[in-house]
């Protein structure tokens, strides 16, 4: 599922938890992996792609998603593309490799699929872009505004390199046939105009539907509580 986000687009994985309606598993923000119900009354404007996987494989992948969604590991928001590889130990446990500063909404999706043996993209083909430098700086500014600890922000700032997997790139790769995946960056980029066009067609700018703000908890810990 692709929708508008803090840095352009936002992406997550739509699925059905057991005996429930459609939900989305997504990294909303720093340490905010969430499962949100997709309901008409609070529906963000979004488009979705049905990922081409055989039915026999879907019966394996959905339980995996459900298990991750049940456990909701705490995942920092970070942009180092290459060191984020292998972040999930296939148990839904987030164990970032050395040097990883976390994941984005987009790399969370790519990592989940990769952990289940269904890689969407070929990361070794990814190319840097100057626009992503500005994005990296915007991410740091956002994390600072949310009172994320300075050490993490500094780590993210060090990883600004111009490399980024964009949410719309994930959406484009997810829409490819299983025969054509994992997709090289050049092939993904060719699909972006169609994805963006489809999104704008369905979700025109200024549409009346309110989009949820992407935030982290904005108050520091510090007060005592009483457990009843």
């Amino acid at each position, binding site marked *: 599922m692709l929708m508008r986000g803090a840095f352009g687009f936002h992406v997550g994985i739509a699925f059905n938890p*057991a005996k429930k309606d459609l939900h989305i598993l997504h990294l909303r923000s720093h340490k*905010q992996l969430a499962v949100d119900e997709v309901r008409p009354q609070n529906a963000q404007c979004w488009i979705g792609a049905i990922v081409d996987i055989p039915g026999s494989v879907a019966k394996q992948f959905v*339980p*995996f998603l459900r298990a991750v969604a049940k456990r909701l590991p705490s995942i920092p928001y970070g942009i180092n593309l290459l060191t984020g590889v292998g972040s999930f130990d296939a148990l839904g*446990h987030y164990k970032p490799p050395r040097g990883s500063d976390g994941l984005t909404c987009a790399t969370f999706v790519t990592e989940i699929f990769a952990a289940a043996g269904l890689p969407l993209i070929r990361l070794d083909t990814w190319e840097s872009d100057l626009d992503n430098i500005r994005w990296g700086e915007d991410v740091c500014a956002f994390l600072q505004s949310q009172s994320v600890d300075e050490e993490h922000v500094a780590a993210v700032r060090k990883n600004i390199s111009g490399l980024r997997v964009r949410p719309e790139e994930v959406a484009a790769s997810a829409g490819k046939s299983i025969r054509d995946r994992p997709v090289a960056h050049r092939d993904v980029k060719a699909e972006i105009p169609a994805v963006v066009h489809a999104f704008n067609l369905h979700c025109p700018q200024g549409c009346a539907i309110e989009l949820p703000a992407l935030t982290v908890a904005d108050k520091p810990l510090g007060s005592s509580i009483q*457990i009843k």
Partner: protein
Amino acid sequence: MFSISDLPSAVNGVQFEQPVLFAPCEQRPPDFRYFLRDLVTHKADNSAAVSGGDIYIADFKQTRNIELPDELSQAFEFVSTQQPLSPSVDWRTHLFDAASDADVDTISETIDGLFDALARDGADSIDLTGVSPEAIQAEHLAAILRATYSWRDQVPGWTHAISVAVIALERNGIDANEALTGLL
């Protein structure tokens, strides 16, 4: 400030397998999950007797002190349910029952039990060395293999189990190359 080790594991005289936290919907502050992350292991399926909120399995394995914002003081409470929360199904139950259903919900029980076993007992506890095509449910085995794919080097018998899965799937009329896409 409170010590997690002081919190009870029984509420209203009802013993739970694990302590639980109940987060009522109407009292839930924004981003409450951010504060849950240090307190809970995972969210539980609500029992039929509980409504209006979510139940989280509390992680009281370690003694520690923790502070939470004042607005969360009303956000969590222990809850008494009419029936104890059901533990996850052992991951081997359906795997070693060739007649088990292989719908997505039943397979979900297997993977849920698998994750719990791994968290509780570690990778060595997932021993696939003893699986054989005659004695397993092929689709449950395939799901276990996919769920453990990224750390297959640590699972005893994973490579052997792939071979078993190929045979068992084909015997059941399932295209093994397709069902094991990305794992072979």
